[in-house]
């Protein structure tokens, strides 16, 4: 098991980095939200790997918690998106800046 830990962590790090990259460079809000989910899953994967490695169910509990929260967060985020879609035509983050100073 110990041999595989690094590969799990590696994949988790790749997922997280891909997500972070997506959040930073993609302009479409839906894709940005998807990328946030990707980052989350990267972290969850690492947590699961550690949990198995240390024979401690705490890690999986944390994963379940974060999944629940992520689901709630996705609901709120999508609801905002739906509301937003009634006012604007383009879902591009760099266009949506009317709330700055």
């Amino acid at each position: 098991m110990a041999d595989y830990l690094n590969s799990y962590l590696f994949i988790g790090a790749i997922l997280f980095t891909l997500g972070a990259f997506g959040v930073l460079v993609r302009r479409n809000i839906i894709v940005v939200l998807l990328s946030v989910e990707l980052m989350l899953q990267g972290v969850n994967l690492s947590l699961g790997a550690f949990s198995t490695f240390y024979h401690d169910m705490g890690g999986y509990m944390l994963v379940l918690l974060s999944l629940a929260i992520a689901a709630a967060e996705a609901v709120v985020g999508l609801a905002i998106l739906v509301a937003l879609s009634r006012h604007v035509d383009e879902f591009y983050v760099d266009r949506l800046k009317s709330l700055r100073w």
Partner: protein
Amino acid sequence: MSEAPWLIPLSPLIAFAINGSLGPRYLKRATGIVGSLGILASFLLTIGLWLDLPKEDSQREYILYRWLESGSLRIDIGFTLDELTVVMLLVVTGVSFLIHVYSNAYMDHDNSFARFFTWLPLFVFSMIMLVMANNFLSLFVFWEMVGVCSYFLIGFWHNRDSANNAAMKAFITNRVGDFGFAAGIFLIFWNFGTVNYSEVHGAIGTITNGAATTIALLLFIGAMGKSAQFPLHIWLPDAMEGPTPVSALIHAATMVTAGIFMVGRNIPIFEAGGVSLIVIGGIGAFTALFAATIAVTQTDIKRVLAYSTVSQLGLMFLALGSGAYVAALFHLATHAFFKALLFLGSGSVIHSMQNEQNMHEYGGLKSKLPWTYATYVIGGLALSAIFPLAGFWSKDEILAGAFFRGASSNGDVLFLLFWIMGLTASLLTAFYTFRMIHLTFHGMPRNRALYDHAHESPWLMILPLVLLAVLSIAAGIGLGFPPEHGIIHDYLHHVIHSKHFELTGDSTIIVSLAIISTAIALIGVMAASSIYQRGRPRPEAMGKLFPALYTLSYKKYYVDELVEILVIKSSKAAGFVLWAIDAKLVDGMVNLLGWLIKAFSSIGRRVQTGQVQNYVLIMATGLVVSLGIIMVMQ
């Protein structure tokens, strides 16, 4: 009635509540009946109180309930049940009732009939509470209440600018007096720890002469405002913008006498206040003469009566200052009758002349308005103090009081001067009264169109005139004969008596003083007759004789203009300076601060691009840098 004196103010209050809530929509003309009945009930209850007045001093204060309590200050809503209250209540409710009856006819064509009969009972309620109060705070509250009612009624025709301005002028001028009055009450509480009349009067010996003088003078400033004494008299003539019954009730017969009443109620304070009585006498005498000289040249019939009221109030203050307290209250009562009569009579004339108030447009109305004419002449004779009408007895006593105060061994010689001023005022009073009567009723009509339409007023207006005329004839001899020992003197003796002044002399002096004042009044009457009666009266006859004096008097000694310059313009200038400091300096500093912050932040806010991804990048960079630092440190 002494068990439930609160019924007396209650009935006008109920009339006010009914008329105010249901009047405009449902009752309409019936509000006049409701109002009149409310006052009539009050008048009858007052007679009940008169017959059933408690004899024991301990029962003469009726406490309804405790109004407020704060620290050592305890204020009750209570009533003073004594002879002074009864006399004032009889005058207030009696005259008010007659004027309510009269108003039913006078206001008949007015669209705001119900509003009129809402404020009028409220005024009567406030006035009743004012005279029945047993402490200074209640007095002050209802003192203000009558002021508010006066404001509403002066500005009754609120679509006229002049009426609104007059109402504000009355209100603001009274504030000047009230400032002094309130300060006086504060000082009373400061010195005595109570504002109850009897407690204050009982403890009057415990304070220094200086404190008593200050209190007395401050209270008198309040009385000057309410009773229109120089230089706070300027509001009363303008108050004639209100409907004539209001002028009769509030600005001649009742409210303006509140100052006299207040001084009469608090004689112990004023007697303890050393010089204050001389000040009161001096201002009274001066105002009496000053206002009388103005009344001589006015052309508006109601303004003549207004200045006459100011002048008569001055005489009452002269009496108070001389120590002839009963004479002042006696004159207050008789004046209420004949001045209400004259005002209502002038209202009858104005009513028949289609609201024309300029006497130049009158003339020859004697045959057109016989009842008004007859009662008006009676009122005029009473005002001129012709024997044996009401005004003679009371005014003669005032002048005799001033004379004796000046002539007696421990008196003040100044009062001889005041006496002469009072005599001159009586001469002018007789003169302007008969000038008014000649211009209005005698001679040839000067405005044919108005004259032809003139008609006698309805009986509802004539009846109060006749009743008041009877009172104007009989009240003097009935109440005040023999002089100094009439019914009113004996009646008021328990409440109002001087501790300091003995204002009597032997009968020869009294009779000769009476003859002097009658002779002077007759001279005034004859002078007016000789100038205005012969043939076709020419109102401008006086003006031709002494043009400079005439203009000075006609322009009311330019007091209004002086006030305009000294008070209003200078207040406005001071206000402008203060406004400039506030708007430019204070606001400028605050605005400068805001502007500076805005300028600095215009640099800082460039960081906030509004691009979410920028923020994320910064966060991520920050995270990496922080983690890097932590790793390097380890």
